[in-house]
Structures are given as C-alpha cells and as structure tokens.
C-alpha cells in the first residue's frame, strides 16, 4: 500500500525524525498518530512496572491489555461470528446504526476468507495494527468453525499479528485446546456475576446442550462454565481479561465479589465497563429505564477493585467490526467492497521498523514523565485533581477542543499522572441531546475535571468553560500528555501554596452521551 511506503521510506531516510514520519502518516491517513507514551498495563505504572517479563512481552503492544500501548497500537475486529448462545438484557441483536458504537453491533458480516483479506489490507495501511480480535457480533465460540478458520488463515498470511477473542464463556471449556493450538494468547471473558440470583436479572436465557434454559438455572450453568473456562485458560498460561458490565442496582456492589473470584482463578486484568442503555437501542435494560453508572460511581468501583488486581480503564466498548486505535473507528475505510479493490502487499519488515520507531518514542515520553514526577516528590501529597485531554489517540495533546470526539481523563497527584478513563462527547445516535448546545454536552462530560488540555480553543468556549470552573489549557499543544499535565499541576500547587486560590473538589460527570440517567429522563 502506498500509505505504508510513505511511513517506511521516511524511516529509512537518514535524518528524518520520527515526528516527521508520524506526521506524514497522519496526514496521509487523516488521523493523528504521533508518538508518546504513558503508563503501563492498566493499573501498574511506568512501562513494564511490576509485571513479570513474560507477561509484559505479551501485553506491551496490545492496546486492549496495556493502557500505555493503547496510545500507540491499533486493533481490529473481524465480524465473522454472528451467532450467539445466550441472551443478555443489555444487548439487542436487531439493531445496527452506522453511528452506533457498542459491542454486539456490526454493519457487515464477513466470511473467514474475506476477513483474512481485510486483515491484510488493514495491516498494510496501518502499520501500528498489531492485534486481531474476534468479538462477535455474537459470541466467538458459538461460531467455532468460523472463528478458528479465520485464525488459521491469518496466522498463515500475517504471522506477526497477535490473535485474541472474547466470549461469554458458555462454550469456552470445549475450545481451550483449539485456542491454544492457534496461539491465541489473549482471551476476554465477559463475567457479570458469580451469583446465579444476580445472573438471572441479567441473562433471560442461555442455549446449552440443545436446550434453552431460563432464570436462575440458566445463570448457574453459565457461571459454572465461565469459572471452569477461566481456570482452564490460566492453567494453559493464556492471559485472561475479564470484562464486567456495571449495572447500577443489579450487580454494582456484586462486582467486588466477581473481582475476587476471577482474580483467585488467575485472571490478569479486570475491565469494569459502564452499562450502555438507551430506549432507542431496544434492549431490555434500555426499554425498562435501567440507567448506567455515573463517572464517579464507575471510578469508585474501579478504585475499590484496583487493590485486588490490574484494572482496565481505557476500554471504549467498541463494535465487533472496529478498526484502528481504540479512540477511533476506521472500519468505514475497509468495507468489503473497498478491500476487494485494494492491492495488498504484506511488508513484515516494514511493519517491524515502524513499530520499533514507535517503541523509541514511547520510551522518550516515559522518561519525560518520570523526570517531572521526580521534581514534584514531597509537595502536597494528598491533593488529587482530574484533567481532561483532547488527543487524537496518541500520547500527545494534539486535538482541537471543538474537534474532540472524546476526552481522556487523567488523575494528577504528586505521585503520578494516572489514566482513569475517557468521556465521549460526540452525539451518540441522537441519544437524547440532539438539539442541545454541544458545549453544554462537553461540560457535563468533564464536569469533574479542573482543567481541559487542548491543542487549540476559541475565546468563547474558553470563557464558558471558565464560568463552569474548568480551565482551558492550550499552551502545551502537541506536547506529551503526562509531562504537560504534571507541569500544569505543579503550577497549580504553586498557586495554592501562594494563596492565589483554594483547592476545591469538583462535581460528578456523565460518562457517555445517550446513557439513560434519571437526570436525562427528567430533562
């Protein structure tokens, strides 16, 4: 592909800096992907951190397993697995809107052969695409023939791409040996409960051994299969991430128990995600008014579980056909019609060079952050503030305020700059705020932040943000996120010290536009 040659040729040219290369790549593809870096895999800070070397090796380039990697590496899902073997109250398989982004939804189903072609096309266009996942739109293991055929084809044509799959776990124990056979070393199991009484409120039925089970019995079978599958995977040294959907009033407190149960069975990472629920999705929860959690509720639960194990906070709850960095979705560039016309040459060597350059840039940012932290040690250890960052999905502050589709949220203290989540601000299938001033939407989404860092911002929104108590910071355009945020924080602490102003806590915020909350219902 021409795009790839632009990047790789530039790397080969002596004297050409990584920034130039990244810029060229970004311009060429209409997306920003420069460099930078942050912390390591979800919960452990500073690159490799406290992870064992063999685990670090497995996760360091995996955007879904490593928070730091997600700034740099891209993933793609191929929608080869349409069938499912359970029904969840947060899922409606009939719904597909092009603007909709959530698991279980997909625009185009693929055969394994077309999927393999698509992977080649994407890998040739996006050299930082390192991970191929099968996540549905049904359940990967309810379609074992299609799923494993796809893995077989891809491992033949693109051996450097990591394979992963996600499953509800019901069929998992039957397929652990095949998962091992294809070197799938990352498996995500969605586990929302360890108590069948709780499960009965989430799963109306399952299909197991040629029979439909309902109620507590269905949930008990699912639970037992999930635990067995998890134990079998970890016994085979396959990394397991557990996804849980936080459903206020149903399993929010219970997820602490889930966290303990999965940790004790060897899960590596726990990803607690907010329920996506809106009446227009036609899900049971959407229709019965079940709300999703607020930002504070989600963070409190994640913080509570963090002492127990690594928590993932950068999940974007993407579609089963998503392509690109986690914050973006470029699947529209790779529809079946388009990939059939693309001439694809798989340049393994070129991909490796590109990824090596990314690694060097990652290291640079990590060093910059640690230098900043070292200077701050000791001052105001108890003060913590949240800040929002406009970024195109790299480790830099490189997005205009008005263009941002999401903001990444960092918690700053004298000990760390810690990624704690992200907030979508693009209008979400007209999720209730169709006519509303978009600035108000943004303010509601980052209302718990003291400042928002942007590459550029106009005078009017800057003034309005100030009125809402949020400082717009644009003097760190294109700089590394964490280093810049910590510099600002140092300055902030300086102003508190001098008495210029008093540190005050901020309010709560809304996670995702379109989520059903009592407030939005009343509005």
């Amino acid at each position: 592909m021409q795009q790839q040659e632009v990047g790789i040729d530039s790397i080969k040219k002596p004297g050409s800096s990584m920034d130039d290369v990244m810029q060229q790549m970004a311009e060429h593809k209409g997306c920003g992907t420069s460099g930078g870096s942050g912390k390591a895999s979800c919960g452990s800070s500073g690159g490799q951190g406290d992870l064992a070397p063999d685990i670090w090796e497995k996760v360091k380039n995996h955007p879904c397993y490593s928070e730091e990697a997600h700034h740099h590496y891209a993933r793609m899902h191929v929608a080869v697995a349409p069938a499912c073997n359970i029904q969840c109250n947060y899922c409606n398989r009939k719904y597909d809107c092009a603007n909709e982004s959530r698991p279980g939804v997909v625009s185009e189903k693929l055969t394994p052969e077309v999927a393999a072609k698509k992977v080649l096309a994407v890998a040739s266009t996006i050299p930082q695409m390192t991970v191929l996942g099968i996540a549905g739109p049904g359940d990967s293991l309810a379609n074992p023939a299609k799923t494993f055929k796809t893995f077989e084809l891809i491992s033949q044509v693109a051996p450097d791409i990591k394979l992963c799959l996600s499953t509800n776990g019901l069929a998992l124990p039957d397929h652990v040996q095949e998962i091992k056979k294809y070197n799938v070393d990352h498996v995500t199991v969605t586990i929302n409960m360890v108590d069948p009484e709780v499960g009965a409120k989430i799963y109306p039925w399952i299909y197991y051994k040629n029979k439909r089970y309902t109620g507590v019995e269905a949930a008990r079978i699912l639970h037992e299969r999930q635990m067995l599958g998890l134990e079998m995977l970890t016994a085979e040294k396959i990394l397991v991430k557990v996804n849980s959907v936080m459903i206020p009033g149903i399993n929010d407190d219970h997820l602490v128990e889930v966290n303990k149960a999965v940790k004790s069975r060897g899960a590596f990472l726990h990803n607690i995600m907010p329920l996506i629920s809106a009446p227009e999705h036609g899900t049971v929860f959407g229709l019965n008014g079940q709300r999703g959690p607020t930002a504070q509720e989600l963070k409190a639960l994640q913080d509570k579980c963090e002492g127990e194990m690594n928590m993932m906070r950068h999940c974007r709850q993407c579609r089963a056909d998503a392509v690109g960095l986690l914050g973006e979705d470029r699947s529209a560039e790779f529809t079946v019609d388009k990939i059939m016309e693309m001439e694809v040459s798989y340049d393994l060597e070129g991909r490796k060079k590109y990824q090596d350059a990314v690694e060097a840039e990652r290291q640079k940012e990590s060093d910059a952050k640690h230098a900043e932290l070292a200077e701050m040690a000791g001052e105001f250890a108890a003060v913590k503030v949240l800040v929002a960052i406009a970024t195109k999905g790299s480790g830099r502050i490189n997005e205009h305020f008005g263009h941002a589709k999401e903001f990444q949220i960092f918690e700053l203290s004298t000990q760390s700059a810690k990624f704690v989540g992200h907030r979508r601000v693009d209008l979400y299938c007209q999720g209730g705020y169709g006519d509303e001033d978009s600035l108000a939407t943004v303010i509601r989404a980052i209302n718990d932040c003291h400042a928002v860092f942007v590459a550029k911002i106009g005078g009017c929104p800057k003034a309005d943000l100030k009125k809402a108590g949020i400082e717009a910071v644009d003097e760190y355009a294109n700089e590394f996120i964490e280093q810049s945020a910590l510099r600002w924080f140092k300055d902030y602490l300086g102003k508190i010290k001098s008495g210029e102003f008093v540190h005050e806590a901020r309010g709560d915020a809304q996670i995702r536009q379109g989520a059903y909350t009592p407030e939005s219902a009343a509005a």
Partner: protein
Amino acid sequence: MAYKIVTSQCTACSACEPECPNNAIREKDGTFIIKPEKCTECIGYFDEPQCVAVCPVDDTCIIDGVYPRYQAA
C-alpha cells in the same frame, strides 16, 4: 409439519443453521429459510425445536400453518 422463519424478524445471525438436526435451514438472500419438507419440528431428536431454542429474536421461528403438524413415524 414444519417451522418457518419470519423474514422480517430474522437477523441472519446463522445460529439456527448448525443446530438443525435435519439440515433443513440454509441462507437465502441475506436471511435464513427452513425447507418445510425436511423439517420434523425436531420430534424424535430433541425436546424442543432447536431453531426456536437458539433464535435471539422471539416469535421468529414459528409453526407454518400451511402444513399439518409433523407426526413421528
């Protein structure tokens, strides 16, 4: 003697296809259909029709009234 799939309801997820003990289900024009002459309502195989049991959308696999109910031999 047969079930049928309500086209407007079918999500084409394909879950029913491999479950049918009679290989009566196949994809046609982006949705799935049941060949009525092959369908036995799963009598003699399972306690419940498999297409109904696995289908994610209620009232999508239904008895086709055009045909008399299947009688086990």
